[in-house]
């Protein structure tokens, strides 16, 4: 036992055991999930926008996993949506659950904020919309033009944020990103069997019923 090789073998076995528990078995449990029937795959443009979301690192401030009503009613009242289930993510490659809420949850931002114009202004300069926002500005997703072309999308800005003598025009990457954000909408209702596949450790019996009701309501809306 007092041998380096024995240590290595023991160490490898333990890791294999943990991998079974944490990765392989849960993998079987949630593998090949049927989509709920409501969720649609991303379009080509939305997928390009998703890549922009990834490479700009939005995930480091925004989660995409609203909490259950049993854990807190706050997510629901802020309009972030019902508790998500594994079936909500079947098209997510890679996953973007996130672990920070320096900014709000975005899993249902497409339902909460459907306007393209709003998003373009917000991405160009978040403080043009919320004076208190700490979100970075993304001016490099836009270009300045003196004479925008006919099919250019000109960003609406309050006068103090307008660059002198120029119009702000969205680049393709900004349009793609906004298309992705608009696609984020998991407000459809979920069945109990899907709900069982998520963490229900915070949901007492009573709360589950309550949240069920809220879920159904929001599903209709």
């Amino acid at each position, binding site marked *: 036992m007092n041998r380096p090789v024995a240590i290595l073998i023991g*160490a*490898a076995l333990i890791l294999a055991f943990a991998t079974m528990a944490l990765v392989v078995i849960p993998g079987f449990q949630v593998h090949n999930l049927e989509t709920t029937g409501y969720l649609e795959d991303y379009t080509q443009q939305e997928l390009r926008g998703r890549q922009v979301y990834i490479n700009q*690192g939005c995930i480091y401030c925004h989660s995409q996993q609203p909490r259950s009503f049993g*854990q807190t009613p*706050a997510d629901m009242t802020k309009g972030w949506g019902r508790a998500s289930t594994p079936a909500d993510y079947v098209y997510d490659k890679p996953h973007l659950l996130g672990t920070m809420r320096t900014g709000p949850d975005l899993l249902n931002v497409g339902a909460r904020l459907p306007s393209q114009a709003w998003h373009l202004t917000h991405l160009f300069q978040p403080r043009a919309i919320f004076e208190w926002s700490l979100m970075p500005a993304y001016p490099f997703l836009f270009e300045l033009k003196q004479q925008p072309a006919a099919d250019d999308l000109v960003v609406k800005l309050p006068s103090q944020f307008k660059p002198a003598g120029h119009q702000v025009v969205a680049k393709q990457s900004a349009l793609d990103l906004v298309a992705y954000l608009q696609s984020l909408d998991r407000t459809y209702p979920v069945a109990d069997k899907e709900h069982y596949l998520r963490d229900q450790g915070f949901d007492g019996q009573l709360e589950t019923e309550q949240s069920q009701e809220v879920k159904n309501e929001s599903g209709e809306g």
Partner: protein
Amino acid sequence: MHTSFSLLLILSFVVSLVALAAMVWAITRGHFFGGKKAALSIFEEGETDVLDDPASVYSTRTHQFDAVRAGIDKSGRSVVLVFLSVAMFFLLVGSLYGLLSSFKLHLPDWLSQYEFLTFGRARTVHLNLVNYGWLSVASLAVVLWVIPRVFRTPLRRPRMALWGGLIWTLGLIAGALAISLGWSDGVEWLEIPWQISVFLVVGVLFVAWPVIETATHREVEHVYVSAWYFLAALLWFPLLYFIAKIPGLHFGVEQATLNWWFAHNVLGLWVTPMGIATAYYLIPKIIGKPIFSYNLSVLGFWSLALFYSQVGIHHLVGGPIPTWLVTLSIVHSIMMFVPVIAVAINQHGLMLKNMWAFKQSYTLRFIWLGALMYTLSSFQGSLEALRSINTITHFTHFTVAHAHLGAYGFISLIMMGAFYYILPHLFGRAWPKPGLIKLHFWLVVVGITIYVVFLSVGGWLQGVELLNPATSFETITRNIKPYLEWRSLGGSLMTLGHFVFAYHFLIMLKQPKAHTRGGE
């Protein structure tokens, strides 16, 4: 279906407990693991009961800087030096990126025109450089230096290890550039594109091979506890990283479990064992007394392996992940008290009986403070995994404070201490300006204290507010801002400390031979 998974949960836990019981039994059966003799195996004649810190004015040993081991140290001398220099480089660049990210969080329009420095990218470059550049490379340097010593045989294939370091370093630089330019795999802790990650896997294997070969040529009977951790970590990391980076293996929430299985293991089974093992070697060496209980340290090792490997899903508490899995990781997070207390009794037990050494040696201060922060951050982490606490701290800057208490307060401080101990032995001469060590120490200690205290308080308040349906996001954002500003102050002091450290390192390297004290 529900019940069968509950059974699995219980099964995993029972297996871990049985394994633990078997360990305790094996240990009580006697000298199975070597006991006291093994604990003493790191000392040569006359090395016990005297302070050994070349950076301390109190070090009374007419220091020959380990004439006994000079032959052993020599084989790996240049490799270790290269690794230490690379680690220092990544410490500096990595901290600058951390500082940049920190300022950007409260000054969102600062430098916002440069896409490659946007918060999401700068922060990711920070994490990758400090984790894979500073912590990992510094750890590898320590491994390459300590392993031949505890096995009393020269390092085998030092050139192969050097190549490994080179491949790793170039891979990491390429990875950081890729992220800066917007090419990322998009998974936290695994952002470096897999095409580049291959280099990191090959690099670490090139280091692991010589280490294992050296171990198999050992000329001591006992395997000292530090070597247990080092060897296991060198096996775990390549496996973990390789599996986690296989493209297209998983997606959706399955990928999320894979993600956090990896991300917590890279902490628990890679940098943490490195930090613990370094402390297990250096604390007794500096004080000149063996650790409190060798058998306990072995128990600590196996229980760490068992429990730490299963805690990853505590990063997804309350998420779209099956309940049993979350509970499994919470239970194992609590079980982490076992290995943490085992290490604490051993390291702090020895230290508390020898506080004189703490006063005399700044090297030891770095290392012991680091060991203490290991205990603290782990206790904190175990509690943070509980549902009642996690519901507040998850998604907030409290997590970031915890991350720095662990990755900085624990591992970084221990690695800095290791630099102060190793370099004089490598060069056979003392540090040119001991005052700078003091300055470095106080800058980073004050800095990290500000960092952790303010972000913990701010993060906690943020978490409470996030749970309150009546609090608007505007209020939450306005309230967190001052705490983020304090973090920038703390981070600036830390970064300044790193520059002092690097300057001292440079003049140590450049010191003319004539100034050397002691011989090679």
